[in-house]
Each structure stands twice: as C-alpha cells, then as structure tokens.
C-alpha cells in the first residue's frame, strides 16, 4: 500500500471500518471505541420526534430532539430508517463501481474516485497525472455544486426567496455543465480504473459564468444582516476531530487534499482555507470561499487532461489498497481487497459519520429555530450513512 501502512494509532482518527481503525496515514486492527454521550432526561423534558419522512429534510432520517420546550438539550440522529444493504464483495471491480457510484449520488464523483484510487493502490496501477488532474476537476466541480446546495438550503431556512432561486438557477447550470461534459448529471459511469470520461473542453468558461453569478449572490448575502444573524453564534463546533468545512471553519486544519498525495493537488499549489469562529456562519464562509477556490483549481488544469484511454488487465490483479480523499463534506475513505479482479473485502468511512457527531455536539444548548441552519451547514448526507456494504 502506497499511502497507508499498518502501525500504532498515530495522527488524527478518521473512523472505523469493520476491520480497522483508520488514522491520518496508519491503520490498526484494534478497533477504537466511539464514545457517544447520551443525555439524561429530566422530568420537565420530552422527546420531539422529527422524521423519518418530512418535507423539511431532503432525505429520510429519524431525529429525536430532547427538549424542555424551546432549548434543545440533546439530539440523536438515526440514519438507519433507509438502511440499504449493498453487496459488492464477490463482484468484479466494474460491477462494484456501479454500486459505489450510488452510495451517495450527489457526491458520486468523490465516492467513485476514492474507491478507484484504493483499487489502483491495491493492484499497483500507476495512473497518469493527466487522468488524476481530470479527476480533481470532477471533484472540484462536484464541490462547487454541493456547496451551492448547502448555501441554498441556508438561504431557504432564512426564507430568502430571491437568493434561493438565484442559487437554484446556478446549481442547475452546474448540473447541466456536468451533464454536457460527462454525459451524465451525476458523474455515473464516468470513471473507471485508470481512466476518466469527463471532458475538460470549455469547462472553465462555462463555470466562469456560474462563479460571476455566485459572486453577486454572495455579496448580497454578506450585506443581509437578517441572514447573517441567523448563522452567527449558531451551532458552534468545537469537536477537535471534525472534518471538512466544519473542521476548517473551526480553525482545525483537516483537509485530505494536502495531507495525502492520493490525488496530485500539490501540482496545483493547493492550500486549505481556514476560519476560526466555528459557527454556522463560519461554515457558510468556508463553503463560499471554497467555491471560488475550486474554480481557481479547475483553471489551473490543462484542458486536455484525461483525454487518453488506457486498458488494464484486471482479471489477474490482486492486492490490498486504501485511499482517502476530501469530498465536499470532508474525509472519505475506502479500503479494498482485490483477488483476481474481484472485490473480496471493502471498507468505507464517510464524512457524514463524523459530521453527525460534530452536529450533535454543536446543537446542545441551541434552540429549535436554529436547527435547520445548523443541520444544513454541516452538509450531512444520510445516503452515505445508512448503508451496509457487507
């Protein structure tokens, strides 16, 4: 394995697969216990059940909110109402990939590329930089769309109709750009071992229009005190192990893009954006700044990147591999064991797992009207939580 080695727990804790505890660049077979604090219910408190199916949430999830009335004492999140059992072991790499792409459809590029990097690590394929840069362009385009959705949901929570519609307009433009460049609006069937089908031609100029529009919306939101007041001091995150924009908004420099060379971000002079407030406003700011930054990254990638197509003999390939990348919501990790071209073991750690833990901690002591702002600001996807790959 190129990026991970077995060793004592070292560096920050990423999470557990069924077989290993995963750290910054080590894995260990003694599983780290996860301590989740459960609040004691006082006589004046009751549980307000929200979900699993409600129009206020994009996905099905069960939320039990312990409250004496307005203040939220604690909140528990049950992602398993829509638990999907997805069997990928025993399948060829290509068949497994069809299912991996659909673990979180909205972050499909991140999931498929991370899985493929783990596979390529296992079977020791040296993928050309051109293809890797093309994959970075996919992930950064996906990040732009994902962050736009989160900001749209924040504006929606504040009842700001005009920015909601304008953000929705440009999010749809990004979906159409992805559809034109790859043939599919969610990057399905775009990536394969050592290859990519994402066209870079005219990508920069198409995204430029989106970024110009976003700048105007962002400037307007930054001058809207009603919007900013709803985010500031809401859901302060102090979790030292948090991930993604939630970490970087809390002055925690966690970013797989400059921690592991799984993808060649070093060729693009990447640096993480950090803020120190830790609240929903900070997470909004990180996401806004990352939209501009992702576009700058894409501008640095050559328009011909990824145009070559190579064939690899997968049927005789065997090995074990691990990879971690920075999805729009944070650390995404895959481990795979390949035997004669078939997946015989797989492990996955999603950023939403850590984000739910951080969300729960940050919600304690807030009030009901803060809930939607805080929930949306973490960018949690239940689809990548309620999934069983065994």
């Amino acid at each position, binding site marked *: 394995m190129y990026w991970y080695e077995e060793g004592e727990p070292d560096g920050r804790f990423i999470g557990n697969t069924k077989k290993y505890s995963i750290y910054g660049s080590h894995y260990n077979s003694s599983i780290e216990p996860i301590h989740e604090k459960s609040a004691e219910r006082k006589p004046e408190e009751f549980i307000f059940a929200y979900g699993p199916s409600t129009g206020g949430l994009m996905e099905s999830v069960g939320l039990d909110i312990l409250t004496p009335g307005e203040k939220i004492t604690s909140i528990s999140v049950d992602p398993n109402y829509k638990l999907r059992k997805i069997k990928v072991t025993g399948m060829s790499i290509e068949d497994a990939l069809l299912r991996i792409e659909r673990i979180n459809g909205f972050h499909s590029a991140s999931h498929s590329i991370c899985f493929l990097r783990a596979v390529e690590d296992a079977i020791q394929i040296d993928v050309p930089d051109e293809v890797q840069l093309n994959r970075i362009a996919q992930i950064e385009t996906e990040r732009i769309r994902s962050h736009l959705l989160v900001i749209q949901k924040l504006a929606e929570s504040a009842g700001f109709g005009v920015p909601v519609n304008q953000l929705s307009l440009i999010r749809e433009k990004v979906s159409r750009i992805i559809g034109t460049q790859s043939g599919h609006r969610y990057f399905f069937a775009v990536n394969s071992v050592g290859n990519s089908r994402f066209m870079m031609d005219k990508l920069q100029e198409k995204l430029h229009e989106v970024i110009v529009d976003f700048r105007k919306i962002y400037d307007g939101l930054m001058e809207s005190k009603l919007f900013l007041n709803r985010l500031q001091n809401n859901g302060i995150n102090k979790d030292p192990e948090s991930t993604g924009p939630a970490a970087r908004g809390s002055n925690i420099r966690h970013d797989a893009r400059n921690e592991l060379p799984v993808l060649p971000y070093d060729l693009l002079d990447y640096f993480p954006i950090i803020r120190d407030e830790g609240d929903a406003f900070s997470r909004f700011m990180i996401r806004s700044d990352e939209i501009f930054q992702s576009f700058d990254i894409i501008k640095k990638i050559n328009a011909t990147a990824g145009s070559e197509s190579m064939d690899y003999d997968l049927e005789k390939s065997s090995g074990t591999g691990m990879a971690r990348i920075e999805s729009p919501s944070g650390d995404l990790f895959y481990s795979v064991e390949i035997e004669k071209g078939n997946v015989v073991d797989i492990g996955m750690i999603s950023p939403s797992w850590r984000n739910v833990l951080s969300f729960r901690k940050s919600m304690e002591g807030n009030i009901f009207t803060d809930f939607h702002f805080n929930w949306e600001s973490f960018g949690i996807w239940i*689809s990548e939580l309620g999934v069983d790959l065994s």
Partner: protein
Amino acid sequence: MKNGIWFLKGVRKGVKTEKFPKTGPVEIAPWSTEIKGSGEANCPTDAITNGKWDMTKCIFCRRCFPNYEPTGNHEIFTVSEKMHQFRRSFYIYPLDSGACGACNTELHALTAPQYDMHRLGIFFTNTPRHADAIVVMGVWTKGMEEPLKRAYDAMSDPKMVILMGACAISGGIMGEGALKSGEYNVEIGGCPPNPYTILAALLRARGD
C-alpha cells in the same frame, strides 16, 4: 443592504424560466434519455433483452454503448391512470424510501427558475395530508416500509402514487423496487430521471 434590494435584484435578473413543455428541453444530458440500438448489450440489469430497452430497469451505465445510444427523447415514463382533478393544482409529497440522493436533488431541481414547476400549478407539500400524489424515490428498505404505508394512508382520496427512478420501480442495481406492481399509477424512468422527464410525467399524470 436593505432586504428590499433582493426584490430589485430578482427583477433585474430577468425571466430565466424556459418555455418547456411548449417547446422541448433546452439542454439535456444524453444518458438520461431513451436508449435505442441493436446487437449485444452487456446489460447488468437486463434492461435490454432481444434488442428491446426497458426504461424501468436501465441505470444508464453505458455498457451497451456503442451498440445502443441515447436518442435525446426525455419522455421515458408511463402513466396508467390520469387524474384530471389535479390539473389546476397538484401537490406532491416526496418520500425517500432508500435513495442515493440523486433522485432527491433532481426532484428538488424542479423549483429552479429554469423549470419553475409552480407556474404549472405543481407544488411540494410538507405533509401527506395535503398531498395529491406521493413521489417515492429509492429502493425498498425495511425501515421505510411503515412510514411509506402511513404516508399513503394519511392522504385523502383521490390520490396518486408515483415511482421515480429505476431504484423505486425495479430496484435498479441496488435492491428491490419500493412497491409491487399495481400499487402505483406512474413510473418515471432514469437513474436519476432528468428534471424535464419528471416534469413531463407529472403533467401527463394530471391529464395535460
């Protein structure tokens, strides 16, 4: 900025809504439209048998390419029963039975100015009690079986059940379909269905 400025910003932006369905789709991703061709398909979901394409099973994985290609026809849906009562006002309740998130965001995209489903009298509702139709997305999951049944029971008559996407209809490549044959009125093909397809299906379902 005073908040009233947002109104002016909105007006200055102009009308961005497309003329669909009076005119065809402005821009559509090819691998979300009808597939046609002949020869070997190498289909992982048996969506192509004897040269015939079944939109209820297709996950648009492109393994059939180049023998089979997308035609650009977005009308990949079936409506077994039209309900004209909903022509002026059609409230839909989305229910995620086990979706990957792609169907969820494509359905959500119908409120984008390009489509603006509200101009056509179609609205989301946050409760099944106010819903004319329930839109089910994703594969069958044990945990969502009861919420789906309760949501359906909470709806008043007449009511409609719409299955959206290959997962909900046939299970696609991820599992079993959300409902059995005969338990729904509309099937919308796609993985995920394109917003144009969803909008066209909703309009057809209410008799347009």
